[in-house]
C-alpha cells in the first residue's frame, strides 16, 4: 500500500428519514479543518433515496464534493447495502480519512467496513488533528474516561474514526458555498443483505434531544423522587430541558434519552446545572465540555465540583424550590 495514493477527507453523511443528521454537519466542519491542513478536499458520502436538498446542505456545511448514491436499497439504513456502497467507494476512490458519527448506525457500519477493508477504526474520538507527517491523530477516552489515548493508524488507509454527536461543534451553514454533486452507482449484491426489517418503531418519549438544549437542568440521586417535579418546575421557568444522571434513569424517574454521560448523551450547553449529581467519571464524560457548569451538592468533596465553574455546597431540595420561586416572582 502506498499512502500517497490515498487522499481527501470523507464524511459519512448519515441521514434518517431523509434528514441529514447534525452529527454529519459537525463532522463536515471538522473535516474542513483537517482537509485545509492537508490541502485536500472534503467529500460527503450521502446514501439514501430521494433526498431532496440534502447534498446542498452538506456543501453549505463544508463539503467540496458530495458523492450522492440514490438507491431504494439505501432508503433506510441496514448494514449490508450501506457497507457495500461505501466499500465500493473506498475501493475506487481511495480516501485518506473516513469519519462516521458514533450513532447506532455509525457504530454498526464502521467496524463492518474496517474489517472488510482491513484497516483500523478508532471509536468515539473527542479530538482529531493532523500530525507533522500528515497522519491523523485520533484522541479518545479510555478506561471509562479516566484516561485519554491518542491513536494513530500509520500503515493502513483509509484512517477511520467515529465521533459522538455533540462532541465537535457545528458551524452555521453557509448557503453561498459552492460544491460539486456527483451521482454514484453501486453494484449491489442483494444475496448478502440477509436481514429483514419487520418494523421500525419511534417512541415519542425519545424524541427530545437534550444535545440541542442551550440550558440543561440535570438531576442526580441527590434530588430524589420527589425532587424531580421541582427540577421540571425550575427548567420551565428558564426555558431549559431536564436531563439526568444514570442513577435516575436506572431508577426509572426519567427516560434514557435524557441521560447524560458515557452511556447516554454528550452535551455541551451554554449552561449545565448539575443538581445532586456526584460527578462520576462516566457522567463527567458527557458534560464537562459545557460552557458553564453550576453544581449544587451537599458534599463539598463531590467530584462534580472539580469541573464546576460555580459550586454551591448545599441541599438541592431547599435551593431548587427557592430558586424557582424567585425566578417566577421576578
Amino acid at each position, binding site marked *: 500500500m502506498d499512502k500517497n495514493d490515498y487522499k481527501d477527507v470523507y464524511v459519512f453523511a448519515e441521514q434518517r428519514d431523509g434528514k441529514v443528521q447534525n452529527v454529519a454537519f459537525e463532522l463536515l466542519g471538522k473535516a474542513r479543518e483537517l482537509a485545509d491542513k492537508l490541502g485536500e478536499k472534503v467529500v460527503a458520502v450521502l446514501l439514501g433515496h430521494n433526498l431532496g436538498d440534502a447534498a446542498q446542505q452538506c456543501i453549505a456545511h463544508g463539503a467540496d464534493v458530495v458523492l450522492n448514491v440514490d438507491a431504494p436499497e439505501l432508503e433506510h439504513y441496514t448494514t449490508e447495502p450501506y457497507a457495500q456502497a461505501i466499500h465500493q467507494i473506498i475501493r475506487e476512490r481511495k480516501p485518506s480519512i473516513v469519519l462516521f458519527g458514533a450513532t447506532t448506525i455509525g457504530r454498526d457500519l464502521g467496524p463492518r467496513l474496517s474489517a472488510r477493508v482491513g484497516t483500523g477504526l478508532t471509536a468515539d474520538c473527542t479530538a482529531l488533528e493532523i500530525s507533522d507527517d500528515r497522519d491523523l491523530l485520533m484522541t479518545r477516552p479510555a478506561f*471509562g474516561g479516566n484516561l485519554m*489515548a491518542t491513536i494513530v493508524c500509520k500503515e493502513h488507509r483509509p484512517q477511520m474514526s467515529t465521533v459522538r454527536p455533540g462532541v465537535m461543534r457545528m458551524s452555521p451553514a453557509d448557503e453561498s458555498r459552492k460544491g460539486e454533486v456527483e451521482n454514484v452507482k453501486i453494484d449491489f449484491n442483494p444475496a448478502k443483505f440477509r436481514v*429483514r*426489517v419487520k418494523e*421500525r418503531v419511534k*417512541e415519542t418519549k*425519545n424524541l427530545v434531544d437534550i444535545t440541542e438544549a442551550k440550558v440543561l437542568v440535570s438531576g442526580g440521586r441527590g434530588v430524589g423522587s420527589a425532587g424531580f417535579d421541582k427540577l421540571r418546575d425550575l427548567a420551565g421557568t428558564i426555558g431549559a430541558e431536564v436531563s439526568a444522571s444514570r442513577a435516575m434513569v436506572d431508577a426509572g424517574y426519567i427516560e434514557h434519552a435524557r441521560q447524560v454521560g458515557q452511556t447516554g448523551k454528550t452535551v455541551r450547553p451554554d449552561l449545565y446545572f448539575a443538581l445532586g449529581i456526584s460527578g462520576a467519571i462516566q457522567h463527567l464524560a458527557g458534560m464537562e465540555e459545557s460552557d458553564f457548569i453550576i453544581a449544587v451538592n451537599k458534599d463539598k468533596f463531590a467530584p462534580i465540583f472539580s469541573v464546576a465553574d460555580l459550586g454551591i455546597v448545599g441541599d438541592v431540595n431547599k435551593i431548587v424550590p427557592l430558586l424557582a420561586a424567585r425566578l417566577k416572582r*421576578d
Partner: protein
Amino acid sequence: MNIVVCIKQVPDTTEIKLDPVKGTLIRDGVPSIMNPDDKGGLEFALRLKDKYGANVTVITMGPPQAEEILREAYAMGVDRAILLSDRKFGGADTLATSRTIAAALRKLDYDLVITGRQAIDGDTAQVGPQIAEHLDLPQVTYAESLEFDGDKTFTVKKADEDGYQVIEVDAPALVTALASGVKPRYMSVRGIVEAYDRPVEVWNFDSVEVDPATIGLNGSPTRVAKSFAKGMKAPGQLYEVEPEEAVEIILAKLREKFII
C-alpha cells in the same frame, strides 16, 4: 442448536480512580468482572437453551486469569468453555482481536454467535461486527431481546436512538447484546460447586489457523501513540452559604449569562 457467546473479563471501571498527584490510574485492587453486555448476551443464550435445548459454548480471549469468568459462565449453565490465550494474541487492537476470535470460531459449530455490544474498558462496540464480517455472517447490533422460532429464524428487537426496530435474520447470524435488555441469572449453588471441576479448554496460537501477521500487536493497524490523564480544568468558585444567599449567587450568574 449451537450457540457461541464471546465474553471478556474487564476491570470494573466504576472502581478505577485517578491518582490526583501523579495523574496515573490506580488499578490495584480493582475487581475484575464479566463485561456487563456480554453477560446480557450470555443470558440470551441460556434462555434459548432453556426453551429449545441449545448447546452453549463461551469463549474468551485474554490472560490466564480470564478463566474466572469462564467458571462463572459454567456456574450460570453453559456447556463448554474455551480460553484463547497466547502471548502472540496480546497487544491487539479491535481488528486484530476480531481476527483471532473469528479464527477460533471457525473451529466451532455455531448457528448463532453472540457478543456484547461493547466492553466497558474500551467502549468501542467494534469486535462484534468485525467478527461477523470475517465469518461472512449477517449482524444485528444493539439487541434488547432475542427470540427464536424453533426452526431457523431469530427475531431481534434492536434499540436505536429514536425507538427500536424488529429485525429477522436466519441462522447462522451474529447478534450483539445490550445489558439493559435482560437481567442475567445468578450462578446456581450447584453450578458454583461444579464449575471448579469442569474443564476449561485452553487454546493457543497453534490451536487456530491464522496468519500471525494479522493478529496481536503486529497485526493491529492502530497504535496508541500516547496516553495521558485528562487535563484538570481551573477550579471554579465554591460557596458554602445559606440557601437564600446561594440562590442570589446563582441568580447573579444567570443574569450575567443572559439566561434571565
